[in-house]
């Protein structure tokens, strides 16, 4: 990696940014989402945080322009130069300019805005180019990048942390070096006998295990789960979520935190969220959900709150009368607070701390007691 001559960097950790104008190639919210996702890439490995301004002068002004655009470094039409950005500082410094003669896209059929924005914002934060071909800060655009598996290279992380250091340790997760491709810390965390989860959910046949800012993604076809930042898939979702469940026939996962919930379909965050959990029919006294699971066969969703649960009819899209009921009464053996729950192979898997209970809803009994991370083949 390299930094600009003199290693200019921001002297504060909270920065503002503003999307000054938009390309006609994409819907505005797609541009906003790409920029937000690109900033989260750097936020995840530094103490930096970003907030968006909709007017006035921000630290990082982001704009689209073609040809000459007022900085004496004109763009050159389609291809060749895609964008440029300036080192941290006042005025034009920190700003990022995108050539609007390019075809900006959300995928890689054209020039992927997220990838270029993540690179240019690296400049806005003080990184110069890297000569590592795998690095995000390598100067030549790589249209073959697999967006679903995009990650900063070690060189990028070392570079940005040489300017700003690592992110502050989050209280719940043991301090783990933010080296994206050093499996040991993830492995130690993943196979810790004390590991507990914030939430678990299925997603199109895979299993997602959420913990703080990350999640493990486990497929039955692979022995090892992948380990990802929540924000690298769904930039708007919060970390340390409370609950998540999939409604398979709607191909949608609902994610809960506090009194709000979001909906995602694959990578796509659904518009119109977050919504209030009280819109589902919870009384105002309910301030958060502990866990939730939607039974595929019966199309009933179970919400667990403290020692009680509610049942929601997905067909009628309404909470059923006669709830809440005591969990222990209808799920014998599930006596402690439920952290998370999902359905698989006809069983409910309840997670509480580092323990997991396999519950047979037909026999109405616990059939196995396991460690929470038994799915990770430790």
């Amino acid at each position, binding site marked *: 990696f390299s930094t600009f*001559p003199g290693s200019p960097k921001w002297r504060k950790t909270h920065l503002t940014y503003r999307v000054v104008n938009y390309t006609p190639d994409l819907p505005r919210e797609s541009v906003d989402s790409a920029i937000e996702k690109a900033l989260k890439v750097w936020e995840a490995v530094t103490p930096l945080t970003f907030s968006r301004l909709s007017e006035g002068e921000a630290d990082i002004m982001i704009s689209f322009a073609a040809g000459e655009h007022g900085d004496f470094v004109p763009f050159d039409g389609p291809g060749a*130069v*895609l964008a440029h*950005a300036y080192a941290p500082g006042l005025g034009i410094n920190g700003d990022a300019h995108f050539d609007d003669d390019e075809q900006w896209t959300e995928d890689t059929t054209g020039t992927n805005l997220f990838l270029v924005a993540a690179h240019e914002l690296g400049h806005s934060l003080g990184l110069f*180019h890297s*000569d590592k071909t795998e690095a995000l800060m390598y*100067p030549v*655009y790589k249209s073959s990048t697999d967006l679903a598996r995009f990650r900063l290279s070690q060189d990028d992380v070392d570079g940005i942390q040489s300017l700003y250091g690592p992110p502050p340790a989050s209280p719940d997760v043991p301090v783990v070096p933010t080296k994206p491709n050093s499996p040991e810390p993830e492995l130690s965390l993943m196979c810790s006998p004390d590991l507990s989860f914030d939430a678990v959910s299925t997603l199109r046949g895979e299993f997602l295990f959420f913990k703080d800012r990350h999640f493990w993604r486990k497929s039955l076809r692979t022995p090892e789960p992948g380990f990802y930042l929540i924000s690298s898939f769904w930039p708007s979702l919060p970390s340390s979520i409370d609950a998540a469940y999939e409604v398979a026939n709607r191909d949608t996962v609902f994610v809960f935190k506090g009194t709000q919930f979001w909906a995602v379909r694959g990578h796509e965050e659904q518009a119109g969220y977050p919504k209030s959990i009280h819109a589902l029919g919870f009384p105002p006294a309910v301030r958060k959900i502990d866990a939730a699971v939607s039974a595929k066969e019966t199309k009933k969703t179970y919400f667990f709150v403290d020692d009680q649960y509610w049942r929601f009819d997905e067909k009628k899209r309404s909470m059923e009368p006669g709830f809440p009921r005591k969990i222990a009464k209808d799920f014998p053996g599930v006596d402690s607070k439920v952290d998370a729950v999902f359905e698989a192979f006809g069983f409910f898997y309840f997670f509480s701390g580092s323990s997991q209970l396999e519950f047979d809803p037909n026999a109405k009994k616990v059939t196995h007691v396991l460690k929470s991370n038994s799915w990770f083949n430790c």
Partner: protein
Amino acid sequence: YPLHSSADSGMEFLQKYLEKYYGLAEDAKQFVKKKDSSPVVKKIQEMQKFLGLEMTGKLDSNTMDVMLKPRCGVPDVGG
């Protein structure tokens, strides 16, 4: 006027690339004559090294391929 041969336009493209991204002094007239001189060869090798190419010191097809790819407008070395 004699049409620019592709070799000349390749040289012109190379010169602009080195000036823009590798801090080659803008010395338009002499570049083509000097293309085999050590400063220019060194600049070509500096670029090839940075971009992960074989350091031939010549404008070979691999080098041209990478130079023609879309990229960021910020220089690779210098200020």
